[in-house]
């Protein structure tokens, strides 16, 4: 079992979500987050006053999946999350020890 985490541009959420459906992913956790990488924050200028925006709004999604699905999931996100300009984000995969479904007590693959 694996956890696929991706940080993407906010407006890409719908597209990414849709692209995961054919892969068989029906659930994910979505967190509004802010961050920066090589994309620097920028300065808003209004009336000569600068409002430094250091952290750029992003969306983080977390998807639990079977080891065998990882490649498809990552592929789908790479495809749908890309704009080609800086700030598109990153995807990473981490191993998961175990998973339970709270309502039923199912665990392991049944709980994904």
């Amino acid at each position, binding site marked *: 079992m694996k956890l696929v985490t991706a940080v993407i*541009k*906010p*407006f890409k959420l*719908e597209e990414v979500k849709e692209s995961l459906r054919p892969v068989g992913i029906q659930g994910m956790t979505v967190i*509004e*987050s*802010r961050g920066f990488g*090589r*994309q*620097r924050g*920028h300065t*808003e*200028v*209004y*009336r000569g*006053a600068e*409002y430094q*925006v250091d*952290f*750029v*709004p992003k969306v983080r999604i977390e998807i639990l999946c079977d080891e065998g699905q990882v490649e498809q999931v990552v592929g789908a996100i790479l495809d749908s999350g890309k*704009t*080609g*300009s*800086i*700030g598109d984000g990153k995807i990473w995969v981490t191993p998961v020890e175990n998973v339970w479904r709270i309502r039923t007590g199912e665990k392991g693959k049944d709980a994904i």
Partner: protein
Amino acid sequence: MDAALSALWREAGGEDGVALVALGGYGRGELSPRSDVDLVFLYRGRKKPVALTKRVLYALWDAGFEVGHATRTVKDSIRLAAENHEAHTSFLSARLVAGDASLHADFVDAVGAFTRKRAAAFARDVAEYTAERHRAAGRVPFLLEPNVKDGAGGLRDLHVATWLAAYFNVCNPESIAGNAEILHRVRNWLHDATERRSDVFLLPLQDPAAADLGYPGDRPGDALMRDFYGAARAIWWHSQTCLSASAPSVAGTHPQPDLAPFAAGLWTPDARNAFVEALRTGSARALEELDQAGVLTRMLPEWDRISSLPQRNIYHRYTVDMHCFETVAQAVALGGPDAKDDLASQVWADLADRDRMLLAALFHDAGKGADEDHSERGERLALDWTRRIGFGEDAAGEVAWLVRHHLLLAETATRRDIGDQRLVESLAAQIGLVERLKMLYVLTVADARATGPEAWTPWKAALVAELFGHTLHVLERGEVVGADVDQVIKRRTGEVRDALSSHEPGEVDAHLLGMTRAYVLAFPTPDLARHFALAQPPPGEGDLRVHAAQAGEPGVWDVTMIARDRPGLFAILSGALAVSGINIIGAQAFTRLDGIAIEVFQVVGALDRVFDDERWAKVESTCRDALAGTIDLDAELAERRRAYARESKGKREPTRVEIDNETSDFATVIEVHATDRVGLLYDITKALADFGLDIQVARIATYGHDVVDAFYVRDLLGQRLDEPARIGRVKEELLARIGRGPRARG
């Protein structure tokens, strides 16, 4: 209960000089299935009627009742009341159940006298306890899961009015007594249905309760909660009015709108002014005051559709109308003493006409509660109402526009790519006016803050602020938006569509949408159409399409070149032209969203001014070779410069290179002023390419010997050039390369 207790009393051998008195809820005659039974055994003299009380109480306990009890003299009671506010208030509803009536009467008199003596202090205590109770159980009457007893507008608020009625005229519990019925029914249902004595009306219980209470339909909870909120609101409002009057220092006051002008039910100038004044106070309570007086429902037809209309999800904490009041309040608060020094406050301070914005704030959700899209319905209502109130067509139009588009900024910021220049330009065109954008921004912020704690996070604020900034800059510069500009763009777009009617309309539109508005402004319709045709189907790698035609002036030609964009494309093409003995006197370059570059050069022959098809064929092939990399442009151009070194006559302007990050949010503008020479354009653009700068848009013009070039560039990561060190290096390098040539500086 009373009957049972009377019987018990007789059985227990009720004594003289002892009274069994009911207090609190029982005293009021409101016993819910699981309420406490609150009793006091009053006695005179020294001897506590212990045996009697025991007999009564044991019987009650055996029967399973929760009994609150005490045995006191009247004097004891008063002493207790002085220390304990809750005890004091429970005494106010004392009722004789059995026993000595005169003792009970004495008790009531004593409590009354005691309270009257310290009425003001008592009111303050009530206000404090009420505030505390609300803090814990619910501050507004419209919580998704209200506390029927302790929350704002709950049953306890009704008691507040009752307690204070005797001492303060404004408190009149009779006026709101009718509203209590639905609260009681819900509370009784709750105590029956839940095993615990919970007073909190949880969301999943609302539909079942409504069904049991006789509400019809699929979601009976909606109708029940509407009635509930209406009743709670009336109770809350009255108790707040009561507390504000009796204990202003604790309960606080709010601006009192002048209600007199509304008495006739007509929108006279006085009524209009009073209304606007009320809005300007930014007090949701003041607006509530207007509403309670019926001003809104009477004088704005169809306002009642959103009156107490609940929005039953965790995202919205208020009913629709209350939310509108709150939005007005949040907007005015941007200029208030607690305002943070942020962008929203700044923009608020800059608004020219705040009244329009406040009207829009009040009306923005008025379209809810019907099946139609609420923005569209709201637009119609706002137009009608603003006119009715007595504002002119101009104002009515603005307010209606704001209501129609009140979600535009927030939705675009979170769902669209706000880094896309085309999106921002089209948004700017849609909004059209700087003042309107500012009002929309303030409305967006106020609306979100008035919705609930989740609706306006720093995350969202950052996105909306960025979009606001970009759109504002586009509008302020007025280059690609504005009434005249919009006309031209609209006309040309239509003409191009007509001219290309043989093609798929979808393709033509995609082409135009993929270009920035500046592109459509830069060329007349026939050229625009020709570019499209030349670019179909889109060229692949290394493919170059060339078209040359005589321009207006003799000897001047327009050369259009279309290719797949890549770093250095412009440099290569201008170099190839220079190598072909062509002087570039003007150029415009644009890149389409899908990466197709459209470059148009105005050229003259450098020495030989005559062009025939053969020559053009040769030029085309040189350009292709240059693209393929089979020509060493640097070497060839150096050779040409040596061979054709020109004497330059007249005064030469010093070379200037300006790096500008103000003009565009989407690119750095590099402006070059220099004296023309062979291969100048190539040298400049090659330098840019060498620095990894991609040219998005180029505008080149020649005036006599002087050349003015403007390049909109981004680096290969898509960012602007804003690191000072890098800017310095680019500038230096450009100056060095421009200076090279027959008259290179030392």
